[in-house]
Structure formats: C-alpha cells, structure tokens
C-alpha cells in the first residue's frame, strides 16, 4: 500500500510536468514548474518521515531517537530557496519576452524569433 504522501507528491510532480509539456502559455508553464517543485519538496520531506516521531529539534524529552530524519528537511529548505529564485528569474524572463514579442505563447514566440 503506497503512502498517501508519496502518491500526492508524485501526483503533484506529474501535474506540474503535464503543464510544462502541454500548456502553450509561458506563465502556465511556470505555474507547472512551481507545482512540480512543490511536489518534489513534498516528496523529499515525506521520505524522511518516520511514523510517530516528532520534529527534529532537540529539547525536553526529545532525543535523537524520537526525531524524524533531519537531512531531507535541510535539503528541502535549500530547495525552496532555489525554487523561489528560479521562479523569480523565470518570471522576469517572461516579462522581457512579453515586452519583446507581445505574446506569451511559446509557439508564437518561436515563429516570431524565426
């Protein structure tokens, strides 16, 4: 029985991938990219989850044996920042594209570029 987290995360990735592959609008593609990224982050976090344990913050009554795996959380923290940065950059590129070509349709842009 596949975990609901895994299922959800992979579904999010696939939905994002679908948007990237099929949608013609650059903004929609970027939304797809964002969704995909969320899915990846969710997947990473859920990999580190150990049933019944709490957050990996050492405090009263919570030792290393009671915490979930901290490494994916550190990874995801990094990944979120990277994701935001790439999204911001891609959005600025999208703005420039719109200024240049007056459209956000990828096929149109290809045609206009020649």
């Amino acid at each position, binding site marked *: 029985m596949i975990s609901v987290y895994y299922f959800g995360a992979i579904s999010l990735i696939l939905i994002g*991938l679908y948007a*990237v*592959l099929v949608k013609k609008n650059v903004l929609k593609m970027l939304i797809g990219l964002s969704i995909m990224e969320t899915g990846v982050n969710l997947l990473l976090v859920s990999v580190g989850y150990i049933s019944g344990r709490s957050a990996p913050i050492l405090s009263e009554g919570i030792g290393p044996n009671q915490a979930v795996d901290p490494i994916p959380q550190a990874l995801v923290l990094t990944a979120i920042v990277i994701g935001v940065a790439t999204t911001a950059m891609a959005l600025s590129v999208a703005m420039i594209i719109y200024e240049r070509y007056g459209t956000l349709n990828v096929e149109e842009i*290809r045609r206009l570029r020649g």
Partner: protein
Amino acid sequence: MINELLIIIFAPLVAGVIAWALDIKGLRELIGIVGAAVPLAYLAKLYPTVISETVDYSLTISGFTLQFQLNTMTWYFATVASLVGIAMAFGMASTSKSSYDWLFALMSFTGVVGVFLSQDFISFFLLWELMTFASFMMVLRRNRHESLKYFVLSVIGAYAMLIAIGILYAKTGALDFESIRQAMYIDASLGTMSTRETVLVFALFLTAFGVKAGAVPLHVWAPGAYSETDQSYTTFFSGALSKAGAYGFLLLYILMGYKLYATLGTFHGHLTFAYIIAWMGAITVVVASFLAVLQEDIRKLFAYSSVGQVGYILLAFGVGSTLGLAGGLFHVLSHAVFKGLFWLVTAAIILQTGKTQFKDMGGLARKMPFTFAMGLIAVLSLAGIPPLAGFASKWLIYEAAIQAHMPLVAGAIFLGSGLAFAYVVRFLYSVWFGQRPSDLEDVKEAPLPLLIAMAILAIPNLVFGVAPGLVTEYLNKILGGEVVGGDYYRLVTPTGTYNALLVTIALVIGIAIAGLVYLYGARVRKIPVTNTYQSGNPVTEEFNLSIRRNFYRPLAEALEFWLKYSWDRFYERLAGLTEDFADSLRQAFYNGNVQSYSWYLAIVLLILALWGVL
C-alpha cells in the same frame, strides 16, 4: 646511441620538421633530401645483417611495447619505399614551393616505413594513421573536397582495422604479430574463434587494406587524391603509400592465413579467402584500366592506372601459391619504380607547361628530350616490354595464375595488360608526339633535381629488367625456398623460363639491324610537322591535326551501358543522403522549442521508471 631502426623510421620526420621550422629556401630542400636519403643508406648498411638474421628493437611507451623488426620481408618493403622516397625528395626540390609540403611529405615517408617495420598492432596502427594524416594534409592544401573523400574512406578503413585488432586482442590477449600468429595457428584446430567472428575479422581487414590499396569498390579516393597534390609527392603516394595496403594483405596471410584456411576451406581447389582477394584484384585491374583509358587528364589517367596496377599485386597475392606471392612482391618493386617514374614525368610536364589536360599538350618530345626518354622507359616498363622490370613481374604473375588454374583471373590480367597498352599509347601520343600548340613553344627541359629523381627510378627499371634474378633471388629468401629458380638473368618457374639477357641481346641486335637498314636506306630529309599527309590537302599551323580529345570515343560508346554505373556517384549520393539525414536530425531534435526539451526529459524519466530505477 640511437637504434638504427628508429633512425630509419624517424629520420625523414625529423628532417621534415627541421625543414619546416627553418623554412629557408635552398636549405630546406637540402635537409629534406638528406632526411629522405638516410633510411636508404641505413637499409643498405643493414642488408648483410638482414639476410642472415633479424634486427629487432622495442621500446615501451605509456604501457605499450612498440616492436620494430627488420627481417627479409620488411627490409624489402622498406627499401622499395625508401627508394621511391628519395626520388620524391629530389623531385620535390624542383616542384614544391613551400615548407608545408616538405613537412607532410616526409611525415608520410616516416609513416610508410614505420608501417612496414612494425611488429605489433600498436605501432602499426599509430604509424598507419600518421601516414594517412600526412597524405591527407598534402591533398587538403590543394583540394578540400577530394581530400575529405580520401580522409573519410581512410578513416573507415582505419577504424575497421581498429575493430578487427580489438576482436583479435579480445580473443588472443596479444597485440604483437608473433603471438597473434601463434595463437591463430593453434586456434585453427581449437576453433575457439567461431566462423562468424573469423569472417568478420577477415572482412574488416579486407576493408582496411582495400582502402589503402585502392581496390574496387574502395578506390574512389584515388583519382582525386593522386591528382590534387604535388605531383612529385604522388610518386611516393602511389609508389609507396599504396603498397602499405598490399603489405597489409600479406600481413593478413602471415597472421591468420592458416586459420582462415581452416575456417573457410577451399573453393574449387583454391583457398577461399585468397580467392576472394584474387577476384578483388582482378576486378580492380579491369575496372581501373578501362577507366584509365577514358581519362582526359594526364593525372587522372595515371591515378586510375595506379589503382589498376596495385590490383595486379592483390591478384597475385590472391593466387595463393608461393609463385603468386613472388610475382606480387616483384610487382611491388616494379610498380613502385615505373609508376614513381611516371608521376615524376607528369610532375615535370605540369611544372614546365602548367597544363594537365591532354587537349592542351602535344609535341613535347623535342622540347623535353630527357623527360621523354624517362617517360618512354616508364611506358615500356608498365606495358610490360621484355627487358624492363614490368615485364618480369607481370610474367611471374601470369605464370602463377596459369599454374593455379585460374583462367578467368588470368584473363583479367591479360585484358588489363592490353588496356595498359591502350592508355600509355594515349599518353605517348597526346603529350609527346604530333603538333605542338603554339603556347608551348618556349617550354624548357625539366630542372636538374627532377631529372636526377627520374634517373634514380629509371635505373632500377632497367637493371631489374635485364637482371630480374637479382630480385627473385632475394624473394626466394623471403619466401624461404627456391620459388623462382635461375640465375641473375634467367627466371625459371615450374612451367617456363624467361631469359632476360638473351631477350635484351636479341632486342639490341634487332634494333641494330633495323638501324642499319634505316641508316643505309634512302636519304633522310627533315620536314616540318605541318608538311604532312592530310588527304592531299595543304595544312597550316592553325589547323589542329592531333587528336587530343576523346581519343577512345568508340570504346567509351561501346562501354556506355557500364559507364552509367559509377561508384563515384554512388558514394557521392550516399554522402548526400547522410548529410541530409544529419541535417533533418538536427532540425528535428535541436529545434529551439522549450517544450520538446521537456518532453525529452519526460521520456527519459519514463524509461527510467519502466526500467525500475525510479
């Protein structure tokens, strides 16, 4: 003290590099000639040693042991190459105007001699590639298209060889010839190498050496590459470099002859694998000779003729008897000297007139008498007129083919010889005789270095023609037995005898008698060339009496059907298709559409998922 074998191999390359780096006119020619003369001097010095024992040398470079050996056979090939090499150097002193030529011409000299002396596949392949690269660079300077054609075919050949070497290495674990030979010999009875693998290795080697030898259908590079380079260099290109292919076939015999016999068996009493080589040679002889006859360009004519003559060597090797090998080896020498001479004569003509087409030439015999005499020796030798080297070698090949009961193959040689006559007559007629075009009035004799070069190659033609025993005696040493008997002047095979001295004497006496008849005949009066028979009509200078175009038109018309099929066009079309395919591939995949790159990613992910990685 540097080893003598290393000097023999690398002296030309070193001289070439020095000549290229200094680039002082006069000095670079001198250095080049000295560099080309060194191998011949050392080979002559080592001759007494070689006939009793082998001279070995090996050095280890980056984990590979490179082995070189001078034995009776490698000495023979290296000497032939060096002889042609020194003639090339003298010729280039006249014809070449740049140090670039010297660098690469001498580099290919090193490559060829190195290929002949190598005793393991590492050095063999390295020097083979050096030879290919240097000759490619020589052609590249003058014609990009032809050089690329040569390069692509050579690369196909070289990498076919690399694959074959890889298979042999995987099967035997050895790279040196001696170990491979022994392993293949033992494997003939063990049969660990399956029939299919043996055939594959054989076919790959056939491709590799067939390209260099110019065997039909892998000959298409030859006409272009032989023409579009310095003609003095072509002396070496066609005289020595094409012998690397012939040597390769011999190597095939040495390495896996018995294994191939054990695997492929015999076909109507002939060794099957040798029979294939013989037919390759026979087809090459016929096709190339027909094409040579129909050429309108002096360089193209000799290029096709060169291909055809190397076909004789393959054919002789393919006969499979020791007599065949003797004939082939003899023809290696005689083809090198007469075809080398032909290219030097061509170099002289092109240097002095600046023209290459037959239609622009004529009546040069009076202007360049020495060159004409040299050209005549080459013509007589190629066509196989008795007291010259070409006759002795062709005679041996005939004897071998007849003795081996190969009537069709012998017929191919016969046809090839007839056609050879036809194209050298064309050369004699269009270049030397007849009316001289007015723009050739101030043509002078070829420069001295070129004349020396011609003399270097003309002397062996005469000496080995009158005394073919000098060569066959040595060939007997290579082949380890009394294959061709007789003495210096007589060749004795199991089915015939050829006495060169007697023929020479008879010829000289005959010419003397004819000369007497001529001298004591009617009074001789010199008349101008235009004062001639023209159905009784007067002829002026403006009237062109010599047939300079389409000399063999009826032959071309008779062959019309066959000439429709051209390997040249086939390869051009293949190249065009490949180019189109590559172009459409590029446009289809590298299309600038962001989403298709995403799709590639998705597809790879899907494959990984299906594979079970994800």
